[in-house]
């Protein structure tokens, strides 16, 4: 990450603009124990109170890292029921990085956030249909399978 992803100009711009970055050694205590770090690189998205919302383990290219951060930020909003903000981030991710590994989860969570906002089941079915069409082999397509019956 330090050799390829973090020096990337788009990554650096994104991180500086939207996040507060903190970097520590894998064995720095008490953080390593608090977050149960077993392997590096481990990248975690925290909210401003220090609560974890998203984690990746292993190398991510610049093209995958930015959408992964966007997914983490969206999940932080989603977990705190800030659905409008979450939907905006998932939508932005899907428009900018539709082929990224983070995209299928964003489709799934976008559907759930829309459902929670509207109390209509339609977005869940639409999420499944989009996943089935655009990401047929994704685990998120399998997770959304029950929604096809709605």
């Amino acid at each position, binding site marked *: 990450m330090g050799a390829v992803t973090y020096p990337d100009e788009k990554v650096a711009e994104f991180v500086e603009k939207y996040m507060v970055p903190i970097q520590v050694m894998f064995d720095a205590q008490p953080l390593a124990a608090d977050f149960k770090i077993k392997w590096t690189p481990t990248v975690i998205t925290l909210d*401003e109170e220090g609560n974890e919302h998203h984690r990746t383990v292993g190398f991510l290219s610049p093209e995958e890292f930015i959408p992964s951060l966007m997914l983490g930020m969206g999940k932080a909003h989603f977990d705190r029921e800030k659905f409008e903000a979450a939907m905006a981030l998932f939508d932005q991710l899907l428009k900018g990085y539709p082929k990224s590994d983070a995209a299928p989860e964003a489709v799934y969570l976008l559907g759930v956030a829309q459902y929670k906002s509207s109390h209509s089941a339609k977005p869940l079915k639409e999420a499944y249909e989009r996943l089935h069409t655009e990401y047929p082999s994704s685990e998120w397509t399998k997770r959304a399978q029950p929604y096809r019956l709605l």
Partner: protein
Amino acid sequence: MAKTIRWEKDKDTALARARKEKKMVLLDFFNPG
């Protein structure tokens, strides 16, 4: 001049900045070896 990431080293400092700037925190555990 290209932007570079300016890393915080202390969690409390990062969280205080996050609250002030209304941002999320990216916490990276790395192994320099």
